[in-house]
């Protein structure tokens, strides 16, 4: 299964493709897609350069992101694990 993610163009915020073609800033909302619809969704995001930067697919299962990318993706989802932005988010 795959998850589609990108940064939002205007402010760089991390977003995930959610149910019903909606995009969410919450990782919890991310939909799991089979490879074919995932590729189609990616192509659709890529075709909207006015909304997204650098869309890509993440390998994931029901439990979460596949191990290799888990840390990076959890930091993208939850923000920095340390530092000033913790207090100020």
């Amino acid at each position: 299964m795959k998850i589609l993610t990108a940064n939002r163009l205007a402010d760089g915020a991390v977003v995930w493709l959610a149910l019903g073609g909606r995009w969410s800033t919450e990782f919890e909302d991310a939909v799991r897609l089979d490879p074919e619809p995932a590729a189609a969704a990616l192509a659709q995001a890529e075709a909207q350069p006015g909304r997204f930067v650098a869309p890509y697919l993440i390998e994931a299962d029901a439990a979460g992101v596949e191990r290799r990318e888990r840390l990076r993706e959890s930091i993208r989802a939850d923000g920095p694990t340390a530092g000033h932005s913790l207090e100020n988010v």
Partner: protein
Amino acid sequence: MYRYDEFDSRLVAERIEQFSDQVARRLDGRLTEDQFKPLRLMNGVYLQLHAYMLRVAIPYGELNAARLRALADIARRYDKGYGHFTTRTNIQFNWPALVDVPHILKDLARVEMHAIQTSGNCIRNVTTDALAGIAADEVEDPRPWCELIRQWSTFHPEFTFLPRKFKIAVIGAPKDRAAMRTHDIGLEIVRDDTGALGFRLFVGGGQGRLPHIASELKSFIPAEELFAWLTATLRVYNRHGRRDNIHKARIKILVASLGLDAFRAEVEEAFAALPKAPLAVPEAEVERIKAYFAPRPYAAAPPRFAAFDRALMTDPAFARWTRNNLRPHKQPGYAAVVISLKPVGGVPGDATAEQMDRVADLAERFSFDQVRVTYEQNLLLPHVAMDDLPELHAALGRAGLAEANAGLAADIISCPGLDYCSLANARSIPVAQALSERLSDPVFQDAVGEVRINISGCINACGHHHVGHIGILGVDKQGEEFYQITLGGSPDETASIGQIVGKGLPGEAVAPAIERVLKAYLARRDAGERFIDTLRRLGADPFKEAIYEAA
């Protein structure tokens, strides 16, 4: 302090207008990311993990209160209330929205700052000794030469699309306090036998994947030939650098693959072919610029420092701070003060907007309106009268900026790592924080004395781990963070690249291992030896043992 002339102001204003239009066209979808990316990078805008990042150039690390307040204001209005000072003496904002960047650039231009050439394959911000103009061992103040290079390299048409980024450092003293030998080009101001001013020209330093210490290309180039030699060197690089392979594109690889002598022959040939007159450093311009950096109107030193001596006797925290954070000033009665941005458990190099404002106030009050960024990710007030030090120390304490650890083990240099950086393999900040807490005992820190600990979150080495006495490099093993330790690096005039000691450690094992290394040093050092001296005398083995010793 530099000043913009009419050209600077016009160029910066034109660039802002151009980039604002590019941002607008990107936002309405007329430009794709592929088209826009090189344009935003030319203006210091990166895309990191969570947001855009804006890197603002601080020319050779020099600020005044107005500039620092402008940075604080940007941090407050467009970011999350803080900024991150880097090992290239720049500042990075981690959270600006793309839509806000044109406004930020306008705010910066009002105080003669910009983000141009802070990214991309061009000549980057020139760096120098944080004690420039202050140090007693200096042949001459390097800052006017930095300023000349800044003017020469800004929008240089021939050197805007180099094979890879290009970093230049200038120092004015034999002691290298700017890691000059880790730069693509390094310059050391010297005088020849006749007393004429010139430079030792170094080339091919660099960190990253294949680290190199720069080699001496010319033992003396006359000062007026500076631009001609820079042009010749960059021209050879521009022509022969490996544009086909990003990992081999830095000048260090070209110098290493041609060999220093062959590279020198190429540069000399290019130099001979250059018309000298148009490239000669204009003397009147040098004098004009030197006036910007003239000595401050210092007061004569009093016969004794009443306030300073009193505080020294009565306040142990002040006494410790003076021992560790003061640097000698060639003007009697003055000292330079390192403001440590390394509080216990803090993020190396981060400063809040409030802290920046406080430092700006203190620079105005106590340091002739000058403040500098050091490549160790600290700030420095260059000219403080001895009797002002107790008051300054108290004021810094109120702002959480009186940490007395400059140059000590807890003065850790660290890149942002995987908490922010999209290129990272592992996190740096939590490792720095754990280490800083582990080494927080001031008695232990003072006993250990001078040691450099550097952390990078990937092989790009923004945290200078290759030249840390103790280097820590984050690596990714199948999704787990591990940290490789290197020993024996050094960034100064005895520069060396650290050697990897063995297999990587998990994050939580790093701080205890480093503490054991420092204890091993305390147990083995001879009188007067710094950590690096003992390491060089004994070799790495006893310290490797300490790292891998079962806890």
